[in-house]
């Protein structure tokens, strides 16, 4: 797939990288997705290990996409793109992790314990 030399290049050109950068990025994403897929299908890990590995793979793929497709931090883009992106990532992680921490804490304090559930089910059973 040869891209013969183009006659006119618009000065947007430096905003997109070379074709091979896209190919490498694409290959890496496919690879990462397949590894995540295989690990889940094989059920070799369980519980928090699989969660940690999957999150790790997703983060790598995030960086791959950012560098190969978004060219984040490249000189073509102003540095403000990167600053706002990092600020957003910080706030989003505070919100998501904060919410999860709060909600699991609230649920553990308030959801009726399994003991009560069983006792209720027996009383239900008896009532039938």
């Amino acid at each position: 797939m040869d891209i013969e030399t183009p006659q006119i290049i618009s000065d947007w050109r430096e905003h997109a990288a070379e074709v091979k950068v896209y190919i490498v990025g694409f290959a890496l994403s496919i690879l990462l997705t397949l590894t995540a897929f295989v690990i889940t299908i094989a059920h070799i890990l369980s519980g928090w290990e699989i969660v940690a590995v999957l999150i790790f793979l997703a983060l790598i793929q995030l960086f791959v996409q950012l560098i190969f497709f978004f060219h984040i931090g490249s000189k073509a883009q102003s540095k403000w793109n990167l600053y706002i992106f990092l600020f957003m990532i910080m706030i989003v992680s505070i919100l998501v992790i904060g919410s999860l921490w709060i909600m699991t804490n609230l649920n553990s304090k308030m959801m009726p314990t399994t003991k009560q559930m069983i006792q209720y089910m027996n009383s239900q059973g008896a009532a039938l």
Partner: protein
Amino acid sequence: MEDIDTQIQEAPKYDKTDDTIVFGFWIYLMTDCVLFAALFAVYAVLHNNTFGGPSGSQIFSPHYVLIETLALLSSSFTCGIGLISAYNMQKNRVIGWFSVTFLLGVSFVIMEIVEFAHLINVGNSFKRSAFLSSYFTLVGTHGLHVTVGLIGMLILMIRIYTKGLTKSSVRRLTLLSLFWHFLDIIWIFIFTIVYMMGIA
């Protein structure tokens, strides 16, 4: 498909308003990230509340979702290549690559609609439990965004086909490809957190 465009278009300059518009669109993408982060937080909190209904592993089929993901990933790739040929002012290549992207995008959306329809027919609709409500809303919002992107792509291709690679069209192509790559990243997280963790 003649390689050299007959009417050689004067290559559009990248001036200050383009820079502001692309930067403004980038900030819009950041706000969309926060929107999806809120939906992910809701899904993460509610995914165990199945209220007696099916849990993730019972309703997700891994192979189906893998095909969807590969379709979206490759559409993101073809979109990138299409953008490069747009910057090289090759109109026909642009239309070629972006129609491939369009087809892959449409197939992704159709597969998703089929999956939703199947779930609803079986009775696991969004009314059934909080888990299913948050699943439908998270994946549905992403599907909605992809559909909006596809409509935008269609309109842009028609405009490029008729008026050629004008200054605004090249800028809009850049915005469209930014949006498309952004949707691809969101789908990676949906694929990992919703489907993979649901199945594992």
